[in-house]
């Protein structure tokens, strides 16, 4: 992760040595990369495969699955049929909670068209509604998982089953970092409950750990163990580090063929530079009152997520490649019961900060190069659960994208009349990932990592770039 722009992974130790000369020199940073030559692999061009606008991604992950039919995908028929069972013509449905025959649940939302494009957005998201001309709403997403674990896993790795690298890891592997003093792939969350599956969501699967996401928290210690231990001064640390250097130097000289030794020395230096840079990156006190207000930091409900959105902007400004932001960490969007209360609150805490982020990126000229992705691991059913909730719905749901070359003010695809299944311009998670990669200049088939003798690719060889995202 802490690499030069455009990672070049040496194919063999020979290549590595040829490139770096012996011992530890100016290439220390390159050697911080995957040393595991046994598994790291040649890659067909680890630079952008084609021209692209997007350089960074901010992925706003609404964990638990927001209800598309209450936010972006109005279904008049749903309210007409509310209280009845799903019509037989919809066939057999498998749901997580097994209430597929429960009565259809009315959507109490008020709907309006917004922006020049007339994009439909419900009254739960009044602020995002003002940004629709920058947004491409995709109503036809679909996925394979029924439960949170496998679905969150798929939305991160393309696979229902753990063990594959996350999208952020692939992007980091493919494009490297633009700031060597900060992690390239950063993950933040709005509360301290664990995101479903925990850190393996931003793990590297079979790739070396250097490409994994680093969890960042606000405050003086954004990265675990970043600061000096309690009660230990800088001076004392420096002295210790200098002793470590002297001790290491001799051993390193004696084992000059092992280039990792030099890299390990450098990694302590790098750690110290991170100590200086990371807290600055997340220090919001440098932001103006107006900016803070833009993100909703002036109100209690929106301040928490507003801070994270603002941090995200600061991070991409500083060259962080991939920011993943969990809203409702710990499946808080999972409204099996009481969706009114649940979604009202979650929308309220998220709406303004997200709109603030888009507006702020735009006014700073960053929106063109920053792709903002919004969505959960799935949507929710038109059928009710426990009377006033909705179950998981992977067969049709909404996500949206803005910036990074996206043509705003459009709505792509459609679900059926009740919002149950995607029917037009269907975009599977594979297509979503293929599209995100494409927008970053990466070709899903050319981005290859060899593991166990298999050429592994980010979307498991599936998925297509949805051209409408850029052409409209």
């Amino acid at each position, binding site marked *: 992760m802490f690499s030069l722009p455009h990672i070049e992974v040496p194919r063999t130790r020979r290549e590595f040595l040829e490139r770096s000369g012996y011992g530890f020199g100016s290439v220390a940073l390159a050697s911080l990369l995957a040393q595991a030559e046994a598994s790291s692999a040649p890659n067909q061009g680890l630079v952008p495969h084609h021209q692209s606008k997007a350089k960074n991604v901010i992925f706003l992950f609404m964990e638990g699955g927001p209800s598309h039919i209450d936010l972006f995908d109005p279904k008049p028929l749903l309210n007409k049929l509310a209280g009845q069972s799903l019509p037989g013509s919809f066939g057999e449905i498998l749901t997580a909670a*097994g209430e597929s025959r429960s009565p259809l649940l009315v959507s109490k939302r008020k709907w309006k068209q917004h922006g020049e494009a007339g994009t439909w957005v419900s009254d739960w998201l009044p602020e995002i509604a003002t940004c629709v001309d920058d947004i491409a709403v995709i109503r036809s997403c679909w996925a394979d998982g*029924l439960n949170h*674990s496998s679905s969150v896993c798929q939305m991160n790795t393309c696979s229902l089953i753990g063990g594959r690298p996350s999208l952020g890891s692939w992007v980091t592997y493919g494009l490297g970092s633009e700031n060597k003093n900060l992690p390239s792939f950063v993950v933040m969350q709005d509360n301290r*409950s664990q995101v479903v599956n925990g850190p393996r969501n931003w793990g590297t699967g079979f790739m070396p750990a250097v490409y994994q996401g680093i969890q960042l928290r606000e405050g003086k210690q954004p990265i675990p163990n970043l600061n000096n231990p309690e009660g230990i001064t800088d001076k004392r640390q420096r002295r210790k580090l200098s002793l470590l250097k002297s*001790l290491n130097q001799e*051993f390193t000289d*004696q084992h000059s063929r092992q280039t990792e030794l030099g890299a390990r020395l450098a990694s302590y230096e790098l750690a110290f530079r991170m100590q200086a840079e990371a807290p600055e990156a997340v220090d919001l006190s440098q932001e103006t009152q107006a900016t803070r207000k833009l993100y909703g930091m002036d109100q209690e409900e929106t301040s928490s997520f507003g801070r994270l959105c603002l941090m995200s902007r600061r991070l991409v400004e500083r060259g962080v490649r991939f920011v993943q932001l969990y809203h409702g960490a710990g499946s808080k969007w999972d409204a099996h019961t009481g969706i009114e209360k649940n979604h009202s609150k979650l929308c309220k805490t998220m709406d303004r900060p997200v709109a603030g982020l888009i507006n702020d990126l735009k006014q700073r000229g960053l929106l063109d190069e920053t792709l903002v992705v919004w969505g959960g691991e799935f949507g929710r059913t038109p059928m009710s659960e426990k009377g006033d909730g909705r179950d998981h719905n992977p067969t049709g749901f909404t996500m949206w994208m803005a910036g990074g070359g996206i043509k705003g003010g459009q709505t792509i695809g459609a679900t059926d009349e009740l919002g149950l299944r995607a029917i037009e311009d269907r975009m599977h998670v594979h*297509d979503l990932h293929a599209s995100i990669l494409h927008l970053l200049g990466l070709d899903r088939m050319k981005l290859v990592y060899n593991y166990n*003798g298999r050429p592994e690719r980010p979307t498991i060889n599936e998925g297509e770039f949805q051209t409408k995202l850029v052409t409209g």
Partner: protein
Amino acid sequence: MLNIFKYIMCIIFSSWLMMSSVNAAELSPEVMNFFEKEVRPLLSEHCWSCHGEKEQKGALRLDTRGHMLLGGESGKSITPGKPNESLLIESVRYESYEMPPSGKLKDDQIKVLEKWVSLGAPWPGADDSVPVRKDLGPDFTSEDRAWWAIQPLQNVTVPIPSASDWCRNEIDQFLLSKLEQQGLTTAPEASRASLIRRVYFDLHGLPPRPEEVQKFVNDQSPDAYERLVDRLLESPRYGERWARHWLDVVRYADSDGYRADGYRPDAWRYRDYVIRSLNEDKPYNLFVQEQLAGDELFPNDVDAQIATGFLTHGIYEWNTRDVAGQWDIILNELTDTVGDVFLGVGMQCARCHDHKFDPILQKDYFQLRAFFEPILIPTNQVAATPKQLEEHRLKMAAWELATGEIRKEITEIEAPYREKAKAVIKSFPPSIQAMIKKPEEERSPREQQLVALGWRQVEHNYKGLDRKLKPDDKEKVLALRRKLKKFDTLKPAPLPVAQQVRDVGQVAPKTTIPKKHTECEPGFLAIIDKPVADFMGSKRKDTTSRRSALARWLTQDSNPLSTRVIVNRIWQYHFGKGLAPHSSDFGRLGGPPAHPELLDWLTQNFLEGGWQFKSLHRLIVTSATYRQSTQHPQEEVMASIDPANKYYWTADTRRLDAEQIRDSILTVTGELDLDAGGPGVTASVARRSIYLRMMRNSSDPLLDVFDLPRFFVSVPARDTTTSPIQSLQLFNSQQMLRFAAQLSNRAYDDVAATPDEEKEDAALRRAWEIVFGRTVTKAELSMAKEFLNRQTELLSEQETTVNLPQQETATMPYRNGQSVVFNAKKPSPFYVADDKRLNPENCTIEAFFQIRSIYDSGAVRTLISKWSGKVSEPGWLFGVTGRGSRRKPQTLVFRSFGEKKNGAVGDEIVFSDQHIELNTPYYAAVSFHVSGERAGTIDFYLKDLSNDDEQLGRITKTHQMKQVQGNNLPIAFGRMVRNRNSFFDGLIDDIRLSSKALDVESLLFTQESVTKSTLGYWKFDPVPGMLQDSSPNQYEITHNDRIISAGNPRREAFVDLCHILLNSNEFLYVH
């Protein structure tokens, strides 16, 4: 539009067409028109971007008639004239494939295609020739057949190099002759001190004790090294190290690996089986047979039953309603793993299509899966000999007879709850529900498998039954259980339970290649072409014997793959690289072996030696090749010829892996507990890392950062990464500071007898011996002394600050940040001094915790209290009751003493009745109302953090307290004030105290922040400080018995020095 007449004409016309060749001249204008106007645009718009000239997904092209007839990986796409038999039509109807994936075509569009196919698929300008596809189908080329890995082992002659006196055994002869050819020379033998360290890490995964090093260095006898190797191979530490390699390959873990990541309480028996087998030097062929088919081949051998646990280590999701889908995933995962582990070929590639580079067919994949198709994974299966089973049965019978009445009563109370627990079945798909309803004997083999898998969800609910009991019922059940307990003397000890596998019966469910609908029987790789029947053995009633056949084939001397694969793995673990580069992929992508003759010779030798590992290890580690130094006098010259050291002209310097690092730290600090075997422990227990619970979703941060795999897939080799995150962990974590303090103490303890004035020098020398296994050099000694002088000076100037390394911290599963480890045996005081504001009227007390043990008595493991427990002074406590609690064992309790509403003064105990599991992370809260609308009530909140499918639970009770009356005692965390019978055991994270009875929305669980009603909020994080209050009230924790070495800056400087030794490259690398 065509009218009916034209329609009929066309059909007649097209049936004629089908018998002759098709070309434009013979197509009627109507047909041409129909094709050009309706068919071609459809195909062009919806098909050709993926199945055209540029891209051929699934090896399928749809842009010519010929290619349609040829079809793709799933066979031909059209049968002219027969739309219902054409894959193209099935796919657009979304019946098999769902094409196009972006959305189903409109009905009239589908009709166009149907019509076109029924017309015979006329295509202007096309003829009937079908293009020939290369590289597909079972016709193997001669190149395929020449693939090195499937050739029989070659009878190689051991070469005789010219400088043969360097050689110690045949390995050296092979390698030296190649070195000579390349113009390379060997490195001198490593020093004795290096050699013993290298071979210790290699065979035991631990550093040698300084005394061992000394003894070996001083032993001048010529066979000193060989004797050392023999000793190491005889030690039980050997099995503990090498089992790690095998457990990586078989993706062993102690948890389910999905959301809830449920703990598998019996998985460890397999881990111990592997350790035991390696220590016994069990022949590898037997080891393989036991793991694949122990139940069939050795039905009376308990170890062989446990061995089949290998087949159960895949992931499992406890609440997937898609039962059939999950079963399919389980079988495929198992097939993938078996391919990786034993065959060393990329079977996974062939799951969806024939392998693109190697002669492995999709059919091969499903033929391999067919061996496992009949398996059943029973739960709670005991592993015992028939004799043990019989003894147990007899004793149980006596107990059952004596307790029949009591148990019947319990069953009756529980019956309605069991019915409710079964309700989960209703959320399964109707087809699965129907299977469950069928009488057992009517279920097909597949149905039996699916019912068993689905039923695990019911069993899961049964386990949680106690939590669901209404208070009255629970009291009754508990009373009955107490009665039952009196008969425990009659009851035999429970038999060991192990994860294991058997077949569903004599008949296997069908194995079908998805979408192609081709049925597969078990079979070995087509290119090897051996009939399975030769390996089947005699028919049995209870099993298909399929797995035995696979096991027999894999353990034949003549199997070219499985034999080479294991020998190559062993070599790889010794040298960090295999003779064939990819130990789990011998295919073309894995690359050819660098030393094929040596690999074949070693394999032959291994087979002749009875498939035993220890002699192979001995051969390898006693070779001159292995003993070389990492330093070569002409390093630059050698490296210019062979920079990758492909020819072994020197030894490589290698970083320790995660477990070696942790185990080394524990060894040098003197804490390592060598207890062997048993259920896995958490990382705060100082046992070898192999005995840690390997939870797939949460691993120990230290191991994690040094590339511990997550065990979702077979791992043939560990990654070795270098990152600043590792450095931060080693340099800044509380954990490492604590280790440093311990190392410092050990070094001083070891030299206790030395006179004071020489003590520091002696301790320094000792530290070097302990950590590096060698004597400190003069230069290092002076460097160290200089450091101590300067650091002491610095520390003397500094004001002494809190020194926390003695307080153990950890990360709570499903949480971020630091939590405090409370140890009931070594209780630490965590007090917040009294303040009048800390005695609120209404209040909410909240904490995150994970409890490791509870009291056997009724005593309460206290989370938070403001009380001494004396029923003469007012106060309160919040905690978890002990097992012996007569009324409510193992539940949350809020106890208070003070004035009641009726004026009396007394004790009040309110139980939440929510069951608390050990080793499970929880959020818990108690909210106490004395005024307001809800005066007189108490709300308990509880949330199992590991299970988000369960909501935050709330239980409301009533109380009689006038209010919780103030006292001047401090608030105490993890204990009561001055009370020895109250200690918490486990992790406590964030604690928050509020001056309000909070509602759900404002609980810490949803809102982790300081609010107006927050009195104190303690997070135990390094920022703002482990003992700091995050609220503006600044109620800091005092920690009276903190060990302050600051009284002696010189000793503190010594701790710093020790800390640096643990960070050094020499400690983290072996050379």
